[in-house]
């Protein structure tokens, strides 16, 4: 499909596949050895990485969309991006073939050095990328700065089984779907002030966060299923998993979504409780949060969690580290 019509998801090779062993060789023995190893194992497929089940679920949605709308280009389009040498690309292509990816997958490789300032985000922009997933936090931050939805994906020790027929995407609220404005109040003035503020501004929509656009894109596809009477059987399901509480601060979140014309299938207000157990029940293919504490908590329980390095939470962490260092 043409990039403008499709929902383009760019994934880096290290999150789509497990390249731990190769990464080790690169770190310990250098680039030339790394390439040599890759070429020697060219026909040996990689094993799946954390983004693998997510991409397979995208494929499942595409299949259903094609059944209902055979001429439409509004499909998921996955672009594989790697900072690797072109020959590693051969092994990647072989692996994709092995796993029978029917996605029209654009394979994009880049040589490592001689970058000449061609940062990934320029390639992302050229491909109208709706979401970028990488293991590299620097690249993710660069993409976010360019206004591209991006998150750093981590590999859980063990991954819980997820659906092969229904794509499930879970989002944190503040600093992910919404801006970090309320989080700032919480960090600066504490919980009570935060509740006060949210209640007072209940009817004022929050500003949008970096992943609002992606939720919007998912919603657009969902409506295509609803339009054909498939609301109950929709292969896309979205979740809001927030530390806000239903009793108070949650209302503003829901009203904001409504003001944007966006629906979310399930909203889970945890009132500060850990997110891990809830996510373990939901079994999303992917979960986005701006706080590493929640990302780690989710990963510990087998959820593929991604960090969105956006907003006040990042600066606070840096400051804490700095304070510890000066001490």
């Amino acid at each position, binding site marked *: *499909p043409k990039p403008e019509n499709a929902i383009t998801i760019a994934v880096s090779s290290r999150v789509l596949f497990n390249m731990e062993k190769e990464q080790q060789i690169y770190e310990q023995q250098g680039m*030339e050895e790394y390439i040599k190893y890759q070429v020697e194992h060219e026909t040996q497929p990689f094993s799946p990485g954390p983004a693998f089940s997510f991409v397979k679920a995208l494929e499942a949605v595409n299949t259903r969309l094609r059944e209902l709308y055979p001429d439409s280009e509004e499909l998921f389009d996955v672009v594989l991006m790697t900072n690797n040498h072109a020959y590693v690309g051969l092994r990647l*292509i072989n692996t994709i073939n092995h796993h029978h990816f029917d996605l*029209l997958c654009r*394979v994009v490789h880049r040589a490592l050095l001689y970058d000449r300032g061609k940062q990934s985000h320029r*390639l992302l922009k050229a491909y109208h990328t709706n979401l970028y997933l990488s293991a590299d936090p620097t690249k993710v931050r660069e993409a976010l700065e360019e206004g591209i939805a991006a998150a750093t994906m981590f590999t859980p020790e063990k991954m819980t089984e997820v659906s092969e027929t229904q794509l499930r995407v879970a989002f944190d609220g503040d600093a992910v779907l919404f801006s970090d404005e309320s989080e700032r109040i919480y960090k600066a003035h504490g919980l009570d002030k935060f509740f006060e503020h949210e209640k007072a501004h209940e009817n004022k929509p929050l500003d949008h966060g970096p992943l609002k656009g992606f939720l919007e894109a998912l919603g657009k596809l969902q409506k295509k299923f609803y339009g054909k009477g498939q609301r109950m059987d929709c292969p896309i399901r979205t979740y809001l998993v927030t530390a806000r509480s239903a009793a108070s601060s949650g209302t503003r979140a829901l009203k904001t979504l409504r003001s944007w014309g966006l629906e979310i299938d399930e909203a889970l207000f945890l009132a500060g409780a850990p997110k891990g157990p809830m996510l373990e029940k939901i079994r999303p293919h992917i979960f986005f949060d701006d706080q590493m504490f929640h990302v780690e908590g989710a990963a510990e329980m087998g959820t593929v969690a991604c960090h969105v390095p956006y907003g006040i939470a990042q600066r606070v962490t840096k400051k804490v580290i700095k304070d510890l260092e000066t001490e």
Partner: protein
Amino acid sequence: LQALQKVNERLLEENPAESLLFDVILITTDSQQQQQSSRVISSTRHYGLEVSRFCFSSEEDFIESLQKNNVKLFLTTDTNEVTQASQTGVVSVLLDQQTAVCSSEQLRVMFCGDAVIRPDTGPMPLTRQAAQSFSTQLGEMRQKFGMFDSPLSFILVTSHGGRESCRGALQMLRSRGVSVDEAYCLAGAPRGPMLSLLQPHFLLRDGYSGLEE
């Protein structure tokens, strides 16, 4: 030209006795320019451009000049000249304003994969053969440098077809001794943004080559 010179410099650094180097000839069929021949020559010197020969020929003779000088690659901004030269089996490239912004430190050559994998049907047109042998020579040059910091870089772009086209092209080029640095499988996505991002100095295809779009 500066990028070509950089390659030569680095080749000689690796091996002072290196013979596989770029040799640059300046050809002009413009009678006005010919009258200012000394100015042309001194200008090239002024900019530090290493031109080994100057051919001031007429429009009718210029093809002969190309052939007499065993030219492997002809660069021009004139579409007619590209067509004429291609027809006689000289790999010709149409340059435009985009080329002006390319690097002077690294020569970036783009291979268009869609042409590379086209099956050989019938006798090979002259330019395809010439393009193949030229790219093999470039491949040889590339081998003298390592993965990093090479003054010569190869980019493969397959515009149409899926990843199979890309894979086929990578393997085909590899079998010809051309080790590609970067590969992009566009699968129908527009090429324009990639060209301005990657900034190749020129594209190699079978026969007629040029930086279109």
